[in-house]
């Protein structure tokens, strides 16, 4: 799993990691019955957690073509066999993108990236110049059309000045439908067309979030502290495990 346990320790009875806080907070925002387009890693963790807690009817759709997958363990790849075995239906990749994603059948899509700007636009293509890149990143994959086809885009991304930038090196996907950005420090939501810090996680401060942002971060006047992961949430989360970890 990418971004595996970072060892940040939270306040409250049970210690938890930044990844766990991010997964729990993203999971809380999924409504029962939501149809979610999930990738691997934290998004998959968050969506599977939701199915095991408050949103058992949450439908997991993986871009590999599996609709309604119910994995018992977290898949390491979006094409793991168990996804097909437990799915309500498996469709071809062209059908997945045409009928299901573009068809407007997906409520929530999760995205990550190497860079994000204040409007929620994302870069997962290159760092540096396109023709002579400092770092060639994997590229857009499903992101460009996920960002424009689902109702709500959830971004999960660790906060740092290198990731939260004033200007993207490349715009891989549009921020138009980004509803929330869950980071390791807090939660950002678009307010007046700009991502605004609305909550900080226990153990983090507004100044931490400001320092980890490459632009002058707007902070909501009513900025909250995120509720720590509840023991039940952590238990369900840790019970998930991953094949990769076995």
């Amino acid at each position, binding site marked *: 799993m990418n971004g595996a346990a970072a060892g940040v320790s939270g306040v409250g009875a049970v210690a938890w990691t930044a990844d766990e806080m991010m997964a729990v907070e993203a999971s809380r925002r999924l409504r029962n019955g939501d149809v979610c387009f999930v990738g691997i*890693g934290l998004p998959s963790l968050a969506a599977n957690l939701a199915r095991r807690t408050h949103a058992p009817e949450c439908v997991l759709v993986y871009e590999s073509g599996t609709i309604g997958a119910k994995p018992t363990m977290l898949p390491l790849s979006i094409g793991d066999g168990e996804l097909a075995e437990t799915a309500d239906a498996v469709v071809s990749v*062209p059908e997945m*993108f045409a009928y299901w994603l*573009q068809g407007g059948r997906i409520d929530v899509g999760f995205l990550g990236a190497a860079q994000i700007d204040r409007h929620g636009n994302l870069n997962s293509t290159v760092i540096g110049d396109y023709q002579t890149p400092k770092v060639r990143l994997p590229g*857009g994959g499903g992101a460009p059309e996920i960002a424009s086809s689902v109702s709500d885009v959830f971004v999960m991304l660790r906060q740092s000045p290198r990731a939260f930038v004033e200007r993207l090196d490349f715009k891989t*996907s549009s921020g138009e439908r980004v509803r929330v950005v869950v980071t390791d420090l807090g939660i950002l939501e678009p307010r007046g067309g700009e991502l605004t810090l609305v909550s900080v996680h226990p153990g983090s401060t507004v100044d931490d979030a400001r320092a980890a942002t490459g632009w002058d971060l707007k902070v909501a006047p009513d900025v909250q502290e995120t509720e720590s992961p509840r023991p039940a949430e952590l238990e369900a989360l840790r019970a998930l495990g991953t094949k990769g970890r076995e």
Partner: protein
Amino acid sequence: MAEIVSLSEAVRELVADEHTVALEGFTHLIPHAAGHELIRQGRRDLTVIRMTPDVVYDQLIGMGCVRKLVFSWGGNPGVGSLHRLRDAVENGWPAPLELEEHSHAGMAAAYAAGASNLPFGLLRGYADTDLPARTRVGFVTCPFTGEQLAAVPAHRPDVGIIHAQQADRHGNVQLWGITGVQKETVLASKRAIVTVEEIVDELEPRPGAVVLPSWVIDAVACVPGGAHPSYAHGYYERDNDFYVAWEPISRDRDVFTAWIREHVLEAVSV
């Protein structure tokens, strides 16, 4: 009608230098053995198409078989970078690599267009991104609504290569599990090679299976394990440890080259 031949014969007969080749399989059924045969036969200046280049194209690129890559997501799934791909793009080693990158939706539409004998695939995509400035995408206007839609040029590979679980003795092929974009790859290609886990007397119909009749395929080669380190549903699991192990192997040019020599070049053709 497909001929049942050895993989080395299939590649020798059907794949030439400078060909456009698509090896597909979405995480599942990735035709790694066929990729290794391309390396063994020293193909050069290939244009290779694949949604997710994965380890198989990292190897082809690192061995200098590839002039141009057409793709949509070039990482090592769940692990990180494809270092041979990055080394070629960032440092031109072993040779410069031309990129044509699309989104998954664009690649899928391009394969479907090729299979449909259409010159382009139509989709709502590429809008409000920097992709149009860097790739081959056009826009068409709906004659009824006036909306602008993206048009991606159809994929029409010279050769499409996939891996499937089974073929019968006539060369009819069946694959099941996650079937990805393989049907479109075969139907979009001028010629098609299918490697299979086994050849059976009769293809027993299975839920969710894709069946490709012998007459849309040129060569079928029996290559058990031909998808490893990817997996073949019902035969073997994905070798997740290999994908993790590929990270340090691919990071270093010499370690990579030694690995290919030992595991590909000095391995026997099948």
